[in-house]
């Protein structure tokens, strides 16, 4: 098994990680299968919605409005949630969030906790810090359980274990749950997980969840799920902690009528996922009586100033951009060196975590635009990728190594050549001569020396045609 860290501070660059993961043919088969299945289901359900584009536009407007007045909506959420008996905490970074959560669990005398799948808690590496503080953590989402038992990392936003197939899951469950005779069909594996977790739901009195949406108007939290493990955690626990990025707030309750139409279709290709829960603070006689929300910044406020970067925070974590991305579909999620993978990860990670650690991510894209097309809240991911590429270039512009880099010198030469048509045509004629030894028998260039070799390392190159358009045009005139 290839295991690459998803900690952006330690992860290798994307091309390095990808080169290694691409050799894992089992992983590639698993990822291709899973993304194909979700894509087909999504496409069929989007096609039946004649108002899909209107819903995308409305969803984008709702998310953009929330971000434009984020301070106001966060304060409104805090006021309403507190009035309903809940507690709101604010965490500037991952470390502060972990300390707040550990403190709440300590006060509740909880040494065990059940968890609903949450990307935000993965972002702050919560489980490891809780375990080292002596709190036993049980992931209750099937995919998260697979990852936890296998000491593995998420590779997809909504189906984090899609890089594992049934045989791999069987071997893992058989070993970790002491079930040597376990069959490897999905129903048997699901049943094993059900029985393993049932006891935890009834016994463990503290739970941690994320939040799909925080509703400012009412002070409510919305959790979208499939298995019912979410309902178990958020209903049966005494103490419940929701960890939510500050961008998760939406202005109104009615906003859900749009986002709950687009999210399930985009995420799993369902008209509606099996369960949605919405609740507000504490409800006497029903559910947890000790209810906390931790609002996490962790770099998010840095994205707000410019509209071009702010749109990144519109994301509702559906994962549709991963499934459709020709790069993600080859490499899977681990190559992105972050819990956020795929196109959204390629723009989110470099912005949330200091850019120098994730400089290669804005380049992990062919800029084909498929991610933008499927995004249910219309995040223009290619636009952000190009912007981040310019930031990477700007950042390195004055490095000594960059000033004298072949790429920089090459670009300067190209700029001079493109400035003048005679120079350009001369360059074409020279290229025709120099490329000759590199043209293969099939008429393609497979390998070039030096810097140009980086291009041919991954693609073939067509030679310069024997005659350019201008040459043909001049010849045509002369012969008339």
């Amino acid at each position, binding site marked *: 098994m290839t295991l690459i860290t998803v900690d952006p501070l330690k992860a290798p660059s994307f091309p390095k990680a990808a080169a290694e993961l691409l050799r894992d043919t089992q992983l590639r088969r698993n990822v291709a299968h899973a993304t194909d299945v979700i894509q087909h289901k999504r496409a069929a359900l989007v096609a039946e919605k004649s108002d899909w584009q209107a819903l995308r536009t409305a969803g984008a407007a*709702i998310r953009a409005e929330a971000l434009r007045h984020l301070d106001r909506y966060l304060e409104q959420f805090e006021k309403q949630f507190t009035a309903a008996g809940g507690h709101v905490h604010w965490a500037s970074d991952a470390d502060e969030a972990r300390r707040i959560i550990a403190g709440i669990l300590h006060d509740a005398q909880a040494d065990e906790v059940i968890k609903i799948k949450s990307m935000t808690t993965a972002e702050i590496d919560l489980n490891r810090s809780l375990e080292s503080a002596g709190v036993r953590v049980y992931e209750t989402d099937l995919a998260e359980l697979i990852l936890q038992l296998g000491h593995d990392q998420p590779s997809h936003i909504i189906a984090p274990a899609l890089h594992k197939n049934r045989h791999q899951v069987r071997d893992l469950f058989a070993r970790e749950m002491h079930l040597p005779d376990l069959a490897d069909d999905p129903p048997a594996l699901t049943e094993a997980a059900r029985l393993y977790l049932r006891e935890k739901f009834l016994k463990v009195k503290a739970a941690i969840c994320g939040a799909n949406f925080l509703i400012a108007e009412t002070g409510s939290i919305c959790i979208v799920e499939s298995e*019912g493990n979410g309902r178990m955690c958020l209903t049966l626990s005494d103490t419940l902690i929701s960890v939510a990025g500050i961008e998760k707030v939406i202005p109104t309750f009615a906003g859900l009528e749009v986002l709950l139409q687009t999210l399930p279709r985009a995420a799993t290709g369902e008209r509606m996922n099996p369960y949605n829960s919405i609740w507000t603070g504490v409800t006497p006689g029903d559910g947890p009586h000790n209810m906390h929300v931790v609002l996490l910044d962790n770099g998010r406020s840095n994205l707000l100033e410019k509209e071009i970067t702010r749109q990144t925070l519109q994301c509702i974590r559906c994962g549709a951009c991963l499934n459709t991305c020709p790069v993600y579909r080859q490499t899977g999620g681990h190559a992105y060196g972050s819990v956020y993978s795929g196109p959204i990860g390629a723009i989110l990670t470099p912005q949330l975590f200091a850019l120098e650690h994730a400089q290669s991510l804005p380049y992990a894209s062919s800029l084909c635009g498929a991610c933008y097309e499927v995004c249910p809240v219309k995040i223009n991911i290619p636009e952000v990728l190009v912007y981040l590429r310019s930031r990477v270039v700007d950042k390195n512009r004055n490095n000594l190594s960059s000033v004298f880099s072949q790429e920089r010198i090459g670009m300067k030469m190209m700029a001079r050549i493109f400035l003048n048509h005679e120079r350009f045509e001369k360059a074409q004629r020279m290229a025709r001569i120099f490329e000759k030894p590199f043209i293969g028998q099939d008429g393609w260039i497979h390998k070039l020396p030096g810097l140009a070799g980086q291009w041919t390392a991954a693609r073939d190159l067509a030679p310069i045609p024997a005659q350019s358009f201008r040459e043909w045009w001049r010849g045509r005139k002369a012969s008339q």
Partner: protein
Amino acid sequence: MSREAILGRVRAALSADRSAESSPLLSYPRTGTLNTEERLQMLEERLHEYDARVFHCPEQALAQRIFEVLSAAGRLRIIHPAALPTSWHAAQLDWTPDSPGLSYAEIEAFDGVLTGATAAVTESGSIVLQHGPAEGRRALTLLPDYHLCVIFENQIVETLPECFDRLKANAAAPTTFISGPSATADIEMTRIKGVHGPRFLDVILVTRPSNFPKLTFQ
């Protein structure tokens, strides 16, 4: 304190964009186009797709229908919200009203739960509970392995926006959307029914003569 620090950063970042004050104009279809019969039929199709079973009856035959469905399913020990109309209880079955003293383990041990609903959404095949008197606390419709849900014709709306129009008066109530029994596709995208929520969902759709008085709960 981090609260002030975070809000301060947010305000500083957004200050330049406050001039353009306008709440977004949202335009998307909110109301459906189906008539009552089509609405009922499509809801039934959707519920079938989720592997739920669907039964019908006129309101006056409801108790009899409940008895038939439960006894045929072999579900004899039934828990129900305390305020559920007693007229729904067929005498032949063992009925237990929910009470705060019942533990989660005790609730789980029942053969099934019988509840009403707040609304149902045709387009997505969703049953919505706001956990009022006829629906009970959330654990009730979560722990037993079988859920029989009674939905009246006038509770059925076509679109999600129509549903939210009905929910908003009570927006702060705990609310659960149920769209088929619990399921997972986490292993090779193979949909497996029945993970942690009730594995079996039956629905009775109740038609009511137009002049019939509206059912209310105390």
